[in-house]
């Protein structure tokens, strides 16, 4: 939806497009492919820096700290710890668009539901992944909460194979 300024006498609004009329691509090494393929087998892959020993998930091919390539891949746990969380305002129909769709209308979230976004440091990793926490009420989440991965039933080697995390109950 174009943002139209209140009409003024001194200026006018000229509508224009900002579509580059073609597509762009990003050359990837096999990092994304390898990571997604791992998810299909419920394995979460990170890259290990030979300099500082840090493990970055999802994998990255360069360690900026050491200015070295991180060619070695390691598998980290699908269990981890919440390091930070954000709770959304209650969702309402007609109030917002996600990827061009109304999330309430499409049934992605219920009317009045609040979504919990979490930063999770998986065991064996030195970085955080951002995902959603399900199976817990907003008032139940806390920093330090132990969580585990929720896997898609039919995994296809896509990023969406790792659906969310849920509280680790024993």
């Amino acid at each position, binding site marked *: 939806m174009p943002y139209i300024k209140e009409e003024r006498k001194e200026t006018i609004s000229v509508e*224009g497009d900002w579509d*580059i*009329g*073609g597509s762009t691509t*990003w*050359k*990837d090494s096999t990092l994304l492919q390898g990571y997604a393929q791992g998810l299909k087998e419920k394995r979460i892959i990170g890259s290990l820096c030979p300099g500082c020993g840090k493990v970055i998930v999802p994998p990255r091919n*360069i360690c*900026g700290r050491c*200015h070295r390539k991180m060619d070695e891949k390691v598998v980290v746990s699908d269990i981890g710890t919440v390091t930070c969380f954000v709770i959304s305002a209650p969702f309402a129909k007609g109030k917002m668009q996600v990827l061009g769709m109304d999330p309430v209308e499409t049934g992605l979230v219920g009317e009045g539901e609040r979504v919990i976004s979490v930063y999770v440091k998986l065991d064996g990793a030195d970085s955080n992944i951002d995902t959603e926490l399900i199976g817990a009420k907003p008032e139940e989440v806390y920093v330090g909460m132990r969580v585990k991965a929720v896997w898609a039933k039919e995994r296809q080697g896509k990023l969406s194979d790792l659906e969310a995390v849920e509280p680790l109950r024993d």
Partner: protein
Amino acid sequence: MAGRVAIVGYAQSHHQHDIQMTREDMVFEVAKGALRNAGISREDVDTVITASTDFLDGRTISNLYTSMAVGAYLKDESKVEEDGAFAAYYALMRILSGVHDIALVEAHTQGSVVNPHLVSSYTLDPLFERQYGFLNDISAAALQARMYMNKYGVSEEQVAMVAVKNLMNAADNLNAHRKMPDVTVEEVLNSKLYYDPIRELTMSPVSDGACAIVLASEEKAKEITDIPVWIEGVGSCQDGYLRDRSLYKLDSLQKAAQDAYGMAGVSNPFAQIDVFEVSEKYAHEELMIYEALGLCREGKGKTLIEKGMTGKDGEIPVNPSGGALGADPICATGLIRVVEAAKQIRGEANGYQIPAYRALAHGQFGICAQKNVVFILGSE
């Protein structure tokens, strides 16, 4: 200049149409390569200046993602949204400020991932030119070529001779992309027509590539290397936008060159500069560049190319590396000219070495070379 600044290290990629590397790996390789060439490590670097454009990188504020690859982690860093030669100019000023001693400059483009000529139409005025839809960088260059050729009676054959010279020169350069050792004027004139008179072989190729240099203050340069390449003079100048620009000459390049000559104490560039590396995005532009650099009178660029004076064995070799016609990884192209000029002074231009004590490097950016920067490099 208050203190002196030298180029103490450099690296560039093997420019090609479709490099099998991620953008970050490409940046990493040249940054690491330039530091290795200078014999220093990332820890020695005070400031990092990069060059690329968000449109060509396919993301906004694109340096945020390449910062770790270039080695800017927890360092002073900035980016220019244009050619890397302007990044070098910026880095030079940062050292001259006295705040920094060593600067790493990096520039890159992967032309293969997005059509750069489509992107070019977004540099146009959104109210008029963009709505008419006639202009992009190639059609604007065609207008420039025609205005120049009509005014001075320059033939398409004379323009094609520039392409022949540079494409043959590129054949000797390991890093060049479009190498044509046996190309002829006929072949150039029969290559695919885009906008008359611009043809496939009279415009630069779309290349993937990256380039990096290390700059150091005088004191540090002398510690780091025995073969510093001193920046003796520099000039940068911005022309007006289309419409009221005289497209048949490069006024801003002329001004930039005069500033650089003044600083370097050059009064007769023809006699005092041994080799020239210039950013001719189109073959006709190289003739215009000869004139703006004061190598001949206005309109006489055609005489220099016809007499072979700018060939490798000529009196004033221009683009022995093959120039932009030999490889054009857009934002890296001008910085590559700086590296090629520095290679000539260090005696490292294997296969196309010109005996050189002083060299000129030129970078440009914008429709019809709107903006220009000139470096005079020397060995002493």
